């Protein structure tokens, strides 16, 4: 232990004393126990398994969000359909009947029916 404290080489004498003081009780029992643990290692989770564990909830959340957006889009489309004047305007055939100044005759009704087809 005559070396400099900042020496780059291990202090062998001190090292020997440290090892001697750190032998620990019954290394064979410890190694046997560890060997037992290593003999029954659990199946290892692969990186894909780890990704899958957090990806699954994400996929469910994305599907729920997509379903919600689709529902909103359909509802808005239905609402627009109900109020759109272009869609609720009378058909050509009805317009023919409305345009008549006098009560429609047989010919006009026939035209109206034929226009409606």
């Amino acid at each position: 232990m005559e070396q400099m404290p900042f020496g780059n080489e291990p202090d062998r004498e001190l090292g020997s004393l440290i090892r001697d003081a750190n032998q620990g009780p019954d290394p064979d029992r410890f190694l046997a126990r560890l060997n037992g643990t290593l003999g029954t290692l659990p199946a290892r989770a692969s990186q894909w398994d780890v990704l899958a564990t957090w990806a699954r909830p994400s996929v469910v959340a994305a599907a729920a969000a997509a379903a919600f957006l689709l529902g909103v889009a359909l509802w808005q489309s239905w609402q627009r359909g109900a109020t759109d004047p272009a869609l609720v305007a009378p058909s050509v055939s009805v317009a023919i009947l409305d345009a008549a100044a006098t009560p429609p005759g047989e010919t006009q009704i026939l035209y109206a029916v034929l226009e409606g087809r």
Partner: protein
Amino acid sequence: MTESGWAEAARTGDADAYGRLVMAYAVVARRVAYSFLRNWDEAEDVIQDASLAGWQAIERFDPARSFRPWFLRIVANAALDQLRRRRVRDAEPLHESLPSRGRLPDADAGRVVLREKIDAAMAELPERQRVAVMMFDGEGYSHAEVASVLQVPEGTVRSYVFHARRALRKALATLVEEPA
């Protein structure tokens, strides 16, 4: 088969190869864990935990590198976690009392007293200094390896070793001054 061969096999899921690697460094790993914890039972539990954690992480290990510092880093992290749990659990820090000194044959007595003195002095060191001096002087690791395990710069490891050696020498000097 070489260590890198075992490591490559372990990476691909060979539990037996992984077990061989861990068993090769188990004794030194136990000493490293003990250096942190100063409790052999806890140190052994930490090695069990670290070996399982290493198995789950072995896929990320580079077989071109040495297994020993990689595994010891896992052990050191597990030991630090255990220390944190202990500090939360216990208000008072744990200091192991020295074993009682019975009457021993003269030949053994000096060695036992020396061992107890070193052990007590090691217990008084800050844990990172204790681990650094144990790994550097006791196990022959390089400063770089110790730095890799403790995840500190090499200069810090040199400082740890310096302070630890000085404290241990001081403790041993009192033994010389006060013969049993």
